[in-house]
């Protein structure tokens, strides 16, 4: 076994590798025993409140360093282990799951750099008693997908700028809707270098968020995912040393795309968890509710709904696990499997959550029964790490791509 992490044979369709199954059970126990009882309160709390106690418990379980190689103080579970864990968390609360998912996004450029010196500087910090979080700062007021799609880069407007100064760089601009920005130790930040048009010289930087010139803006009041904090980051003449560049000058779009491909299996797992959580509530209800002298699930139309929901959750699970396994065993992460996994999981999360709400009738519409929260959370999954439109482009580009060697 490598010091850097476990490797295992491709999982069967029904059996997880033993270490991953043990991880899943520990995380499930945490999610069901600690998060579920507090999920309603988390959802209805003010937007800028974060349950640090739950984050600490998740950190103690290793959720902030599952994908980091053991050589750097991580647990070496790879994307496969992280994705399985995030499904369990998201079944209880998607916002808490995204706290750890967003930290992965901040770690991804460090891992993708392939530079041991960069990894030595930025990864061991997660192996501490107190939780350390990271974030990924891409989205801006006028640029979202324009920074994810290379062909769009020339059209991007007023992108955050990076100017060379001496041996380093000066960053100016704003990033919006950044999960964890309020509490992260550092951000992976993308800025356009020099006077290149649009985002054609996008460059990736690792920036400590206590650097002079950085302001963390107010937390956005979201429809769902209220267990995590999304806010603005403002950069005013922020100095960044050259050693903090990832992927070379102008290589930001490549790192960014790789980062998205790498993370999509985990995000698909969050969507799957939302669907699984909603389905669990509906299944329990349909097993107890008596109408027409029998349990709801015995009525054919209700049975059909439950069967479809169950099939969708299982299919989404298989897709994200396949994508996660491939992510752990191939570089670059092939774009096809993660994009398909997220495209499907995002859609069925909405369908399953809505159907669960429908099955419960009036109670599905009430906050106290919990399922309406899953509908709101499901609607949020389509927004980050690739909208359905961006994912469709990634899938078709992959279908027609050829290697250049």
């Amino acid at each position, binding site marked *: 076994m*490598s*010091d*850097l*992490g*476990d*490797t295992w044979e491709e999982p069967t369709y029904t059996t997880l590798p033993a270490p991953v199954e043990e991880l899943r059970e520990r995380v499930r126990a945490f999610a069901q025993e600690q998060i579920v009882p507090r999920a309603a309160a988390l959802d209805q709390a003010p937007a800028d409140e974060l349950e640090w106690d739950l984050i600490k418990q998740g950190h103690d379980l290793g959720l902030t360093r599952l994908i980091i*190689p053991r*050589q750097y103080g991580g647990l*070496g579970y*790879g994307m496969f282990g992280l994705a399985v864990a995030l499904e369990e968390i998201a079944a209880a609360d998607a916002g808490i799951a995204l706290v750890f998912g967003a930290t992965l996004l901040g770690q991804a450029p460090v*891992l*993708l*750099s*392939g530079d*041991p010196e960069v*990894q030595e500087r930025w990864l061991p910090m997660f192996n501490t008693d107190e939780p350390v979080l990271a974030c990924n700062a891409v989205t801006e007021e006028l640029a979202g997908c324009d920074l994810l799609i290379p062909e769009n880069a020339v059209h991007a407007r007023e992108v955050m700028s990076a100017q060379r100064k001496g041996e380093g760089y000066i960053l100016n601009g704003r990033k919006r809707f950044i999960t964890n920005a309020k509490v992260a130790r550092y951000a992976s930040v993308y800025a356009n270098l020099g006077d290149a048009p649009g985002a054609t010289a996008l460059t990736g930087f690792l920036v400590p968020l206590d650097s002079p010139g950085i302001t963390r803006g107010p937390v956005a009041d979201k429809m769902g995912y209220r267990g995590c904090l999304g806010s603005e980051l403002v950069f005013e003449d922020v100095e960044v040393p050259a050693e903090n560049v*990832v*992927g*070379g000058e102008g*290589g930001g*779009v*490549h*790192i960014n*795309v*790789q980062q998205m491909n790498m993370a999509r299996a985990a995000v698909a797992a969050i969507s799957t968890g939302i669907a699984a959580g909603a389905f669990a509530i509906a299944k329990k209800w349909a097993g107890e509710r008596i109408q027409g002298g029998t349990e709801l699930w015995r009525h054919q139309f209700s049975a059909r709904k439950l069967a479809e929901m169950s099939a969708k959750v299982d299919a989404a699970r298989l897709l994200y696990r396949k994508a996660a396994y491939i*992510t*752990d*065993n*191939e*570089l*670059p992460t092939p774009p096809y499997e993660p994009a398909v996994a997220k495209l499907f999981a995002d859609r069925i999360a909405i369908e399953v959550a809505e159907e669960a709400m429908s099955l419960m009738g009036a109670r599905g519409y009430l906050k106290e029964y919990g399922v309406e929260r899953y509908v709101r959370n499901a609607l949020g999954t389509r927004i980050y790490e690739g909208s359905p439109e961006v994912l469709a482009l990634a899938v078709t580009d992959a279908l027609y*791509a*050829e*290697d*250049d*060697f």
Partner: protein
Amino acid sequence: MSVFSSQEQAEKVFERLFSILAADENFTGRLRDSRLSLRLNHSKPDVELNISADGVRIGPDPSGAKPSITISFSCDSAHKLWLGQLLVPVALATGKMRIRGGVSKVLEIVPLLQPAFDQYPAIAAEAGLPV
């Protein structure tokens, strides 16, 4: 047109590069301890190198053993990579390189290849390749 004039020239250059590494006990010891092996599939021209704790072989491994990691790229991309003119993340993202094998093993083997970056410019210059 490739910077390499022939398959023979490419074989000679890359075999020499990795033979220097294979002669380093620190390199081979790490490979042995971690049970790592590496296959480099070059194209244009086609050159396959198999590297393990036992040494460097040009061409397929007769034992048929599956390497821990397989790197596929063109000879020109390999030339630029070892010269430091092509970064690994960019090569991966632009389809100029593909790596198969556990990513954790890839991360383990990368630092072991640093001497290749150090040695290659001189080897390439001696072979008459553009540096």
